[in-house]
Each structure stands twice: as structure tokens, then as C-alpha cells.
């Protein structure tokens, strides 16, 4: 550190080395040891620091109570916000990488589920998806009643 830089730093940070950025303090002490005349510069800077010590703050009576008693709005988040926080946790909480992966898999699972309800049928017009065989055998309540009534009629004959 040059004496010029030392003087600039006194102008900026004052005459108390402990108030200077930590990264500069050691260099400043070395510089001061090499150039003792800089001690005068430091003393002049310290005069303003001493004057600033007179600037004391009020007691701020009841400050915490006021802040704790203020009416805080509800922090209940919307569904999208909650989903976003669940997927990408906020700083300070452990990151769960499996969550976005699980979400990305959801469309695939849905596709498999829906696809399982259909089967590929080769028709004259080409390939087409039709509801699977088991599903086509299922009868609605109305259809079942219709067949039961036919059966009763046949027996009475």
C-alpha cells in the first residue's frame, strides 16, 4: 500500500484502522510502520471519528412491542405459490431434486393410465384407438335392465 492510497483510505474510512475493511487493515499497518509520518494523517482522520461519537441514538422505547403488535396480513399463499415453493424450496431449506422430477413424470403417468383404457385396432381405414375389450363388455344399468326384461318375457312365453 502506498502512502497516497493510505491517505485516500483515511479520507474514506477515517482514522480508526479497525473501522477499515478487514482486507486492508494488515497492509495499512505495514504501511504505517514503514512511513511513521502517516500517523499524523491517521490522527487527523480520527478527530472526525471522535466527533461522530457524540451522535447517539434515542432509546426507541416500545419499538419491538409496536412491531410485534402490528396487524400482519395472513401469509396464506395461493395454490400456485405453494406448488412453486414445494417444487423449488426457498433459500435456507434443503433442496429436493426429486420434486421437479416427480412433477415431470406426472404427464407420463397420466398418459400411461389413459392409454391403458384403449387398444390399437387395425381397421380398413388404418390403425385406430378403441376402448379396450373389457371396457366394451361393460353394460350400463339401462342396458342390463333392458336385457333382464327381455329374459322375463321369453320365460313367460
Amino acid at each position: 500500500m502506498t502512502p497516497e492510497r493510505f491517505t485516500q483510505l483515511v479520507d474514506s474510512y477515517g482514522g480508526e484502522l479497525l473501522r477499515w475493511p478487514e482486507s486492508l487493515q494488515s497492509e495499512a499497518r505495514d504501511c504505517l510502520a514503514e512511513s511513521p509520518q502517516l500517523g499524523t494523517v491517521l490522527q487527523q482522520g480520527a478527530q472526525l471519528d471522535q466527533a461522530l461519537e457524540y451522535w447517539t441514538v434515542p432509546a426507541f422505547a416500545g419499538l419491538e412491542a409496536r412491531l410485534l403488535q402490528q396487524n400482519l396480513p395472513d401469509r396464506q399463499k395461493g395454490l400456485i405459490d405453494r406448488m412453486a415453493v414445494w417444487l423449488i424450496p426457498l433459500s435456507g431449506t434443503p433442496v429436493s431434486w426429486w420434486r421437479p422430477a416427480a412433477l415431470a413424470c406426472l404427464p407420463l403417468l397420466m398418459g400411461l393410465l389413459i392409454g391403458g383404457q384403449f387398444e390399437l385396432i387395425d381397421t380398413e381405414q388404418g390403425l385406430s384407438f378403441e376402448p379396450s375389450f373389457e371396457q366394451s363388455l361393460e353394460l350400463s344399468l339401462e342396458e342390463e335392465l333392458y336385457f333382464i326384461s327381455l329374459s322375463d318375457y321369453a320365460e313367460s312365453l
Partner: protein
Amino acid sequence: MLTDEQLMAAIVNGDRHAYAEVVRRHARPLAAFAWRMLGNESEAQDIVQETFLRLWMQAQRWDSQKSALSTWLHRIAHNLCIDSLRKLRASSDDDIAELLDDRESAEQEVSRESRQVQLHAAIAALPERQRSALILTHFQSLSNKEVAEILDISVNALESLLSRARRTLKHRLTTTELASAQTDPRSLRL
């Protein structure tokens, strides 16, 4: 003891105990900062209240990787102080320094208090950014990088602001001290 990161994560989930703990840790330094910026205790408390309300509502916006919680809160409080000072200036032709000068003349009898008022007036008369730089660096125990981040400037620019602020302040205080010394030689300090 929970870290600021853990407390903020809890606040995001609406934990009021975590909020109370953050208030206990950070409210007083912020109030001191706001008071030094505005020179009025009631307004300073309003600023702190608004700062913590924003913390409660926007906790998810704080990124611990980017800045310490204290730096983030000081940045919010600083912006609110600047807004408040501009409103004050717009609503009145009187400069804040003049208001403080009035107080000064009323309190001249008490030496220490008078010195404090002189100091307050001299700092209040500094340009906004110089004042912010000086208060944040000298009184708030923040590093030069943190102050540069709050003011959104480089460290070199911060050093330049500080240098000008200290030079002006020293000149003003010396002038005031010399004026006081004409009536009371014991008051000469700079």
C-alpha cells in the same frame, strides 16, 4: 439458535414466532439507521415498521446467496428513508438542515446536546448519497461491500462518496466549532 435463513424460511410459511425473533435481532440497528437518516424518532419507527411489514409479505424474495438479511433490510429501509426525505422536501421549502438549525438554537445552552444537534445538522445537510454512505459505513457495522450493494454502487464509488462526505462534514464542523469557540473557547474540538 436458528440462522437468519431458517427464520426466513419459517416466515415464508407464516411463522409469527420466527418473525418475532427477526424483529428482536434486527429492529434496533434499523431504527438507529432510520433515525440518523431522518432525524425524527417517530418517522424512524414508521420506517422500521414498514420495513418489517415488507419483510413479512415479501420474505420469499430474499436470497441468502446474494446478501445477508441485515443488508437486505437496510436496503429496504434506505429506500423508504430516501422516499420519505423526498416527500418531506417536496412538501416544505424548508430544508431539513434548517429545521435542525432551529432546534440547535433552542438547545445551545446544553453543550453536549448542542454538539449532537450541530452534528446532526451537518450530516443532514450532506447530499443524500453521501449521508447514506457515511451513516451505513460508520454507524451500521456493515462492510464496504455491503454498503456498496445497498447503495447499488461500486466500492470505488463508495470510497469517493465517503471521502467527500467526511471532507464536507469536517469543514462544516470546524466552521461551527470556530464560531462556538468565539463565545466558549473550551468547545473547540476539531
